[in-house]
C-alpha cells in the first residue's frame, strides 16, 4: 500500500472512530443522567404507594402493584447499568482504534523535525524558569495560608459542647464521661450543719411552717380583682407570689406549691376528673403558669410567636398576643432541635405583667389585658438546641438567665420599661437550666446552674455572691433549694449539695441517679429527682443517701413538684406518679393522661394543669 493511500485510509478510519466515540460518549452521558434521575430506591411513586400501604395493610392489590413497580424499576435500572458498561467497552474500543489510526497517520506523514530557529539563550530560560517557579511557590503558599486562617478549629470549641448525648434509641448505651470535674476541697469539713438558721422566703408545703415574710418586700396590697389579678401598680409580696403559680416550677422556681385539694386520681382517655381539655393552639414545651384565674403559656414556630391567656376555670381563651415586629440584629435565627422548639422557656407573671421569651431572643412584656408594654430582642442566641431558660419576675425586675455558646450572662430588665437594670457576664458555658430565687439570711440570691459552675447573684445589683465549679456537660436541670442548702445536678456530672457562703461549702456529692432535663426538688430533708431513663429517686438531702427509688416505663422530662405533702412526677407518657413526701416509698397513685407530655404541671387550689403535646388539661373534681 503506498503511503498516500495509507494516509487516507488511516485518516478516514480515525474520523469514523472519532465520530463513533463522540456518539457513544454522548449516549453514555445521557444514560448516566437518566440513571441518576430514576434511582429505584428514591422513587416518589413508590414512596406514595408504600405510604398508602401503611394505612391499608390488607390491600393485596396494592401490594402486588408495589411489587410490580419495584421489579420494573429495578429491571430498568440494571438494564441501564448494563448499557453503560457496554457503552464503556465500545468507547474504549473506538478510542483505541482512533488513537491507533492517528498514530499510523502521523507516522506516515512525519518529517524530520527542524531545529527551533528562535532558540532561547540558556540564561534567559533559567530566568524565566525562576520567575515562574517563584510565582507558583508564592501562589501556593499564599493559598495555604488563606485556607489556614479561614479554618475554624471546631474541636477547640468542643469543650463547650461535649459531655452529653441525647437519648436516641431504646437500646443505645450512653456512656459519656465527665469532661471536667472539680473535686471539693479535701480539707473541708463536709458535714451537715443542722443548727444553721437561715431566714428564707422558702416555700414549704402546708404541713411545714408558714413562710416568714420579708419586711422589705411587704407592700401595700390593694383589693384583688377577681379573674384578672390585682389592680395594682406595685410588685406583689412574697405571700401573694406563693399563693399563685407564677413561673416555671412555681413560686421562685423552687418546685414547691402551697396549694391544697390537689387531685390524685384522674383518667385522660375516659375524662374522669378532667374538668376541661383544650387543644394547644401552637406547639411549645413551656409549662403553664397561673395568677388568680388566668392561665398563661406560649407557643411558637419559626415564623410566629404567641402568648396565650386562658380562663383556668372554663378553659376559654381570654386573649392571645402575637409577638412580632420586634427589631432583631442581623444574622440567622437559631434552628432549635425538635425536642426544644421555639417556645421552651416558661413565662413569668406577677399578676400585673406577663413576660415571655422565645428561642429567637425576643422578650416581650404584656399587661394582664394582653397589650404589649414593651418588646425587645436580647441578641440572637447562639444555642444549638434552642434557648430554654425560663424567666423569674420579682420586684419589678425581670430576671433572665441568657447563657449561650458565645458567653454566659444573667441580666435584669425593668418590667415596666424593658430597660436593662444590670447585666453580668458569667464564667459559664451554655446552659438550658432556669434560675431560682432564694433568701439566705437577709439577702436574696438568684442561683443559676451551668457548666462549670453553680453561682449565686444579687438580684438587685447582679453582683456575684458565690460560685462553685462542680458541673460539666450540657446542663438542663435547674437547682433546688431547701433548708439553706442548694442542690444542683446534671446527667453524667454529679448531684451536689452546696452550703452557700463565703466560701461556699460542698456538703456531699452523688452520681448514681442523675437527671438530664428534669429539675430536682427538695423539702424537709428529702430530695427528689426524675431521670430521663425513667427512675424516680428519693435522696436523703442531708447526706446524699438513696432512700428509695421507683422505676417507670418512660423517661421523665417534667420536673417533680411537691404539693400538699405529696410529690407529683409526670413521665413522658403522661402518667403521673404520685408519692407521699416521705423517706419510705409510698405510691399513692399513677393516673394517666393518655397523651405525651414534657411540660411541668401547674397547681392551683383544687386543680392541677397539665400541658400535653396536643392538649391542655385542667384536672380536678367536676
Amino acid at each position, binding site marked *: 500500500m503506498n503511503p498516500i493511500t495509507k494516509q487516507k485510509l488511516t485518516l478516514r478510519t480515525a474520523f469514523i472512530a472519532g465520530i463513533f466515540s463522540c456518539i457513544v460518549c454522548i449516549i453514555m452521558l445521557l444514560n*448516566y443522567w437518566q440513571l441518576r434521575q430514576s434511582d429505584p430506591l428514591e422513587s416518589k411513586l413508590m414512596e406514595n404507594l408504600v405510604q398508602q400501604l401503611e394505612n391499608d395493610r390488607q390491600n393485596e392489590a396494592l401490594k402486588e402493584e408495589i411489587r410490580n413497580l419495584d421489579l420494573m424499576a429495578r429491571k430498568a435500572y440494571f438494564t441501564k447499568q448494563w448499557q453503560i*458498561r457496554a457503552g*464503556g*467497552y465500545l468507547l*474504549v474500543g473506538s478510542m483505541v482504534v482512533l*488513537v491507533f489510526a*492517528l498514530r499510523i497517520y*502521523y507516522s506516515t506523514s512525519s518529517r*524530520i*523535525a*527542524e*531545529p*527551533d530557529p528562535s*532558540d*532561547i539563550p*540558556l*540564561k534567559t*530560560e*533559567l530566568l*524565566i*524558569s*525562576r*520567575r*515562574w*517557579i*517563584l*510565582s*507558583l*511557590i508564592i501562589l*501556593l*503558599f499564599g493559598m*495555604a*495560608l488563606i*485556607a*489556614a*486562617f*479561614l*479554618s475554624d*478549629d*471546631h*474541636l477547640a*470549641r*468542643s469543650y463547650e*459542647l*461535649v*459531655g452529653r*448525648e441525647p437519648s*436516641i*434509641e431504646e437500646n443505645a*448505651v*450512653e*456512656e*459519656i*464521661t465527665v*469532661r471536667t470535674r472539680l473535686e471539693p476541697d479535701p480539707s473541708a469539713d463536709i458535714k451537715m450543719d443542722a443548727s444553721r438558721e437561715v431566714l428564707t422566703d422558702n416555700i414549704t408545703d402546708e404541713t411545714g411552717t408558714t413562710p416568714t415574710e420579708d419586711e422589705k418586700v411587704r407592700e401595700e396590697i390593694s383589693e384583688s380583682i377577681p379573674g384578672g389579678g390585682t389592680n395594682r401598680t406595685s410588685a406583689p409580696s412574697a405571700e401573694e407570689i406563693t399563693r399563685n403559680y407564677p413561673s416555671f416550677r412555681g413560686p421562685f422556681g423552687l418546685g414547691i406549691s402551697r396549694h391544697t385539694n390537689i387531685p390524685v386520681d384522674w383518667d385522660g382517655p375516659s375524662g374522669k376528673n378532667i374538668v376541661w381539655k383544650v387543644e394547644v393552639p401552637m406547639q411549645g414545651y413551656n409549662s403553664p403558669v397561673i395568677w388568680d384565674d388566668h392561665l398563661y403559656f406560649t407557643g411558637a414556630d419559626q415564623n410566629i410567636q404567641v402568648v396565650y391567656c386562658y380562663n383556668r376555670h372554663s378553659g376559654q381563651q381570654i386573649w392571645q398576643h402575637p409577638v412580632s415586629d420586634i427589631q432583631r440584629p442581623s444574622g440567622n435565627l437559631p*434552628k432549635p*432541635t*425538635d425536642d426544644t422548639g421555639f417556645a421552651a422557656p416558661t413565662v413569668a407573671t406577677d399578676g400585673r405583667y406577663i413576660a415571655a421569651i422565645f428561642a429567637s431572643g425576643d422578650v416581650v412584656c404584656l399587661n394582664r389585658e394582653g397589650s404589649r408594654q414593651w418588646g425587645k430582642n436580647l441578641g440572637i442566641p447562639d444555642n*444549638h*438546641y434552642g434557648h430554654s431558660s425560663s424567666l423569674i419576675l420579682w420586684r419589678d425586675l425581670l430576671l433572665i438567665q441568657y447563657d449561650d455558646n458565645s458567653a454566659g450572662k444573667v441580666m435584669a430588665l425593668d418590667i415596666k420599661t424593658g430597660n436593662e437594670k444590670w447585666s453580668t457576664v458569667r464564667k459559664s458555658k451554655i446552659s438550658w437550666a432556669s434560675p431560682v430565687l432564694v433568701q439566705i439570711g437577709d439577702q436574696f440570691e438568684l442561683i443559676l446552674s451551668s457548666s462549670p459552675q453553680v453561682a449565686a447573684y444579687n438580684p438587685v445589683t447582679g453582683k456575684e455572691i458565690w460560685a462553685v465549679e462542680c458541673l460539666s456537660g450540657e446542663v438542663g436541670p435547674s437547682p433546688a433549694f431547701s433548708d439553706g442548702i442548694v442542690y444542683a445536678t446534671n446527667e453524667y456530672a454529679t448531684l451536689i449539695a452546696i452550703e452557700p457562703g463565703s466560701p461556699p461549702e460542698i456538703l456531699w456529692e452523688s452520681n448514681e441517679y442523675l437527671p438530664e432535663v428534669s429539675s430536682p426538688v427538695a423539702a424537709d430533708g428529702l430530695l427528689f429527682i426524675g431521670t430521663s431513663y425513667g427512675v424516680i429517686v428519693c435522696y436523703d438531702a442531708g447526706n446524699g443517701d438513696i432512700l428509695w427509688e421507683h422505676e417507670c416505663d418512660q423517661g421523665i422530662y417534667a420536673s417533680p413538684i411537691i404539693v400538699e405533702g405529696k410529690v407529683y412526677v409526670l413521665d413522658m407518657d403522661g402518667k403521673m406518679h404520685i408519692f407521699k413526701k416521705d423517706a419510705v416509698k409510698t405510691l399513692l397513685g399513677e393516673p394517666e393522661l393518655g397523651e405525651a407530655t414534657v411540660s411541668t404541671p401547674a397547681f392551683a387550689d383544687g386543680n392541677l394543669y397539665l400541658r400535653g403535646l396536643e392538649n391542655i388539661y385542667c384536672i380536678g373534681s367536676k
Partner: protein
Amino acid sequence: MKNLYKIIAVSGGILISVMVFAQQRFPRPDFESGYQVPSPTAPEPRSASIEIIDVILLFAALSLVTWFVLKKRSRKGILYTTLFSMIYFGFYRNGCICAIGAIQNVTLALFDPGYAISFTALAFFVLPLLFALFVGRVFCGGVCPLGAIQELVILKPISIPVGLQKALSLIPYIYLGLAVLYAATKTDFIICRYDPFVGIFRMDAPYHMLILGGSFILLGLFIARPYCRFLCPYSVLLNWMSSSSWKHLSITPAECIDCKLCENSCPVDAINKPVSEPVSSSRDVRRFLLLVVLVPFWVLIGGYIGSKAHIYLSRANHTIQLAEMLITNPEVRNDPENLDVQAFLTSGKTLDELINEAELIRENFNTGGWWTGGFLGLAFGLILTGKTLFRNRKDYTPDKGNCVSCGRCMTYCPVGTPGYEMLIKKEIESDN
C-alpha cells in the same frame, strides 16, 4: 530437550490453573435468576504465589527495558514492553499494587507499628528505584502501566513553554508531601483514590474519575505524559535516583555530531541542548549564593505554613470530619440517613472519646504539617537554586532526572544507522 519443553508446558499449565482458581477460594453462589454479581471496584485479593510472580515479572520487565535502552537501543522493544505492561500490570492486575501507590504502604509501615507491609508492595516500591539508581527511569519508559497508557496515546506532542513546565513540575512534590502526610496519619491513600487511570484499567470507577481519566487521555494526545510529568509523586523519587544513575539512556550510541535532529524529538522536553560557552558572572555567583542561603528560610516558611494549614488539611480525616459534624451540627444525630453518624452513635463510643481521638489526630497533622511544609520548602528552595546553575555541555544529552527512557530520541539519531555509516564511508573514501 523435548522433555524440558514438556516440563515447562506442564508447569506453565499448573501455574495458570493456580492463577485461575486462586482468585476465588469461596465461589460465588449460583443464582438461578441470572443475577450477575457486580464486580467490586477494589480488586479481589490475590494469592501470595501469584504476587510472587508479579514481582518476578516486574523485575523481568525492568531488566528487559534496561536491555532495550542500553544494549539493543530498540524503541520498538520498549514499545512492545510498554504494551505488555499496560495489559498485564494495568488491565489484568487492575493497576494494583503499583509502585506509585506503594509509597503510601511504605509510609504507613514506617508510622504505624501495627501495619505489616506486604513483600509485593515493598518490592514494587524498591525495585524501580534501584533500577533508576543504576540505569535511569526504565520503569517509566516501559513498565509503569500509567505511563504505558499515556505513552501509547501520544499523537503529536507539543512543547510547553519552559517557564510553565518548570512551574508545573513542582506539583509532584506537593502531591508526594500530601500523600505521605495522609498515609502517615492513617487518613487516606490519596494516590490510589485519585488515580485517573485505574478506573479505565478496571472498567469501573465513579463517573468523575472516569471523566478525569478520559481527560488525561485526551490531554495526553498532545501533551505527552501529563500525569508522569506534572502529577506523579513517585517521579520525584525516581528523579532523585536517576539524576545520579550509574548508566543512562543516551541519544547517540557514539559521539554526538551535533546534527540537531533530536532537538525536538523528546515528547517530555527532557533533552539538554549543548551550551556553547560558560555564562557565569559574578552576579550569577552572588545570586546562587543568595539562594543557597535562603534555603533554610524556605524550609522554615514552608514548615510554618504547613503547620498553620494543619486544621484545613486534617479535615480529610474521617474521625475529624465526624467529630466536627457532631459538634457544629448536633441535630445531625437525628438524621437516620446519615450512616456515619448512626454507625458512631451505635458503636458505644462516646462523643468525648471521639473528640479526644480527633484531637490526637489533629496534633499529628500539626507535626506532620511542619514536616511536609518543611520538605516542600526545602524542595522549592533547592529547585530555585538549581535554576541558577550553568553546566557546560557540548552534546545533546537526556536530562537524567526528567528523561523517562522511552527511547524516542534514539530513533532520531543518525549515528550508527546504515545510512549514516554509508555516508561516513563515502567521506573517508573521498578523503582518501
